């Protein structure tokens, strides 16, 4: 079975690679454009996927409401930026405050959602927690829709066109550049948090064994809350950035983005942080190439097909470890 998988994988990559090289030679700049677009897209997926993968790593729950946290981040930034803009504040201050408010509010929502919908169900069957998560997602979407607007709202980009970037702007715009750079910085910070701080150590311990961690004096409930907060913060950054990139948001953006990010997390190996980043990049780039060279209307179908193929042939993902069920 394993050998068969490897052969199949090599064959698929080979055929796609052969077709790809022909296209790339025909028009290299188009390919490059798609590639960078994919990288941008992948960065956003990565920012969201981190939340999924960290939460799954600790409590083995698909946090369906995570996409909504990302949407709330973008929405808060939009509201704060428009209010301050009307009051005539300095644009640099607006950018900083919009980011700060988006992150703070997303964290608060992530924290509250965990306390309401997941904490009372910690010992309940998995199905209950999953249904509760779906309910929460549905609730948050409709809450934002009713309180704000069901229409698309234009989002004036917070990120200005940098002057020093002008010579390269025809290859990659300054917004895309900012997205990629910010993602790299966030990843590095997160890596430091997980690897070198006490909190990170406690998180890793909780992910490995909750009971043992609590015996060693780790407050498991607090660690789980922290995980939700950290995941929400990265999702909020992703939300604000994508809103700047696309230029409009509505209450529904979190749903599909959340699903795609989840697919990316599974692709990379759910529970693994480097896996989430790698999976996001792979998904972003391959999606971008697929829509560029084949049918753009089947973009989402492509992502789901990847998910199904991954789950059938390698359910543990690219970087995940195989796990056997034990009694």
């Amino acid at each position, binding site marked *: 079975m394993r050998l068969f998988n490897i052969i199949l994988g090599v064959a698929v990559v080979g055929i796609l690679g052969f077709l790809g090289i022909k296209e790339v030679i025909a028009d290299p700049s188009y390919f490059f454009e798609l590639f960078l677009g994919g990288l941008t897209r992948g960065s956003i997926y990565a920012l969201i996927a981190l939340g999924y993968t960290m939460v799954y790593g600790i409590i083995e*729950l*698909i946090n369906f409401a995570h996409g909504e946290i990302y949407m709330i981040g973008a*929405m*808060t930034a*939009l*509201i704060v930026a*428009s*209010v301050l803009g*009307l009051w005539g504040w300095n644009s640099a201050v607006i950018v900083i405050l919009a980011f700060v*408010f988006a992150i703070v*509010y997303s964290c*608060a*929502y992530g924290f*509250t959602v965990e306390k*309401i*919908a997941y904490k*009372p*169900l910690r010992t*309940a069957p*998995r*199905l*209950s*927690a*999953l*249904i*509760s998560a*779906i*309910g*929460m997602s*549905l*609730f948050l*979407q*409709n*809450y*934002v829709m*009713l*309180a*704000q*607007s069901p229409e698309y*709202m*234009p*989002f*004036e980009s917070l990120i200005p066109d940098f002057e020093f970037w002008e010579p390269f702007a025809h290859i990659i715009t300054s917004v895309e550049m900012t997205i990629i750079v910010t993602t790299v910085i966030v990843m590095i910070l997160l890596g430091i948090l997980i690897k070198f701080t006490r909190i990170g150590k406690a998180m890793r311990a909780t992910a490995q064994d909750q009971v043992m961690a609590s015996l060693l004096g780790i407050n498991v409930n607090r660690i789980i809350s922290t995980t939700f907060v950290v995941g929400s913060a990265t999702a909020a950054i992703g939300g604000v950035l994508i809103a700047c990139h696309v230029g409009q948001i509505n209450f529904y953006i979190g749903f599909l983005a959340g*699903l795609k990010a*989840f*697919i990316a997390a599974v692709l990379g190996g759910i529970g693994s942080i480097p896996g989430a980043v790698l999976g996001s990049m792979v998904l972003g780039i391959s999606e971008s190439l697929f829509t560029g060279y084949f*049918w753009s*209307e*089947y973009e*989402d*179908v492509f*992502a*789901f*097909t990847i*998910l*199904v193929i991954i*789950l*059938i042939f390698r*359910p543990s993902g690219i970087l995940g470890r195989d796990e056997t*069920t034990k009694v």
Partner: protein
Amino acid sequence: MVTIREIKQSFFIGLWFMVLTFPIMVIRVDTIKHIVIFRWSNLMWVGILGFFASLVWNYFLRRKEEKKKTDTADDIPIVHRLLQNQKFKTPFLMALALFFIAYPFIFPMYHTSIMISALVYVMLGLGLNIVVGLAGLLDLGYVAFYAVGAYTYALLNLHFGISFWLALPISALLGTMFGTILGYPVLRLKGDYLAIVTLGFGEIIRIILENWDELGNGPRGIGNIPAPSFFGHQFGQHDSVIYIYFIVIFLVLLTIFFVNRLENSRIGRAWIALRDDEIACQAMGIDKVKTKLTAFALGATWAALGGVVFAAKTSFINPMSFTIWESITILCVVVIGGMGSAIGVIAGALVLILLPEYLRAVSEYRMLVFGALQVIVMVFKPEGLIKSVRKIYKFKKVEE
């Protein structure tokens, strides 16, 4: 009762919600006209609501804890106890039957039409109940099979002029086939992956229907789907609604009969056992994949049947009827009504579908309430409003 400490805590929770919802509830920006509206009154409502909700929440959470300690096994819901009582059961069922038979003749067509859609949801709910409630497989793409059924009838009728009665079994067969084809690769997955894959499948079917113009006219959909005929006789518009109503009633009864028989059969017990403990089941010699696949395929069959009725009733279908929200609505029916409990699902479908129809003023809050209810039911009453009752054999003392 409520202590001072709890009131203080709830006060702070109310404050927390006021802060939390401030940007979204209070500020409303119009980014096109560049106007900002502050709705301060909302802040007050959120605070008050948060305070009382927190009090009630804590009270019920505590009661749940207490109940866990003094667990009583024979905690049978009142509906079941009434139905077990023979004196009550017969007149109740008679009255129910009379009500449903007389319904289309007493009420105007509009109400009958709403009742039909509610009854279609009963069918769908009972079908999904096999998958989610009995077998414990979370299927978020249930609407895909519903779409398969509806499109099968519409397309077969369009191209070959096949009638409703012939389309019914064909669609059911196709639904089973689709269920099996989709189920086979994904049922080996763990539960939560299954939810995402089925969700993805539901979306794929919808996207394909929207983009594949040659198949079903894309977003424009298919119109002029004929209502069912009665031995070749086509009814007028009014009569045909009543006719469809009785067909649906018949199908619902058929479904109830099937589900009831299934639940007490070997395969039904295998489903329930599999839901409770997979590993133990395998040790007992139950074929995991085959059992799950049967549940999945049977659920799909019912969805396809529901789809045919839906197409015949509305006489027009397009992909917009088969969004993910439809799947989630059906899931709500099952979850809130009571997973695994046929009576619960029937009651859930009737309440959840009929109530928003008649409370038009608040119908925009429908999905908001559904979402909140899902969380609340899962936290406080995971077995749903009317829980299922497992067969219990009681040891009776022999009187001497």
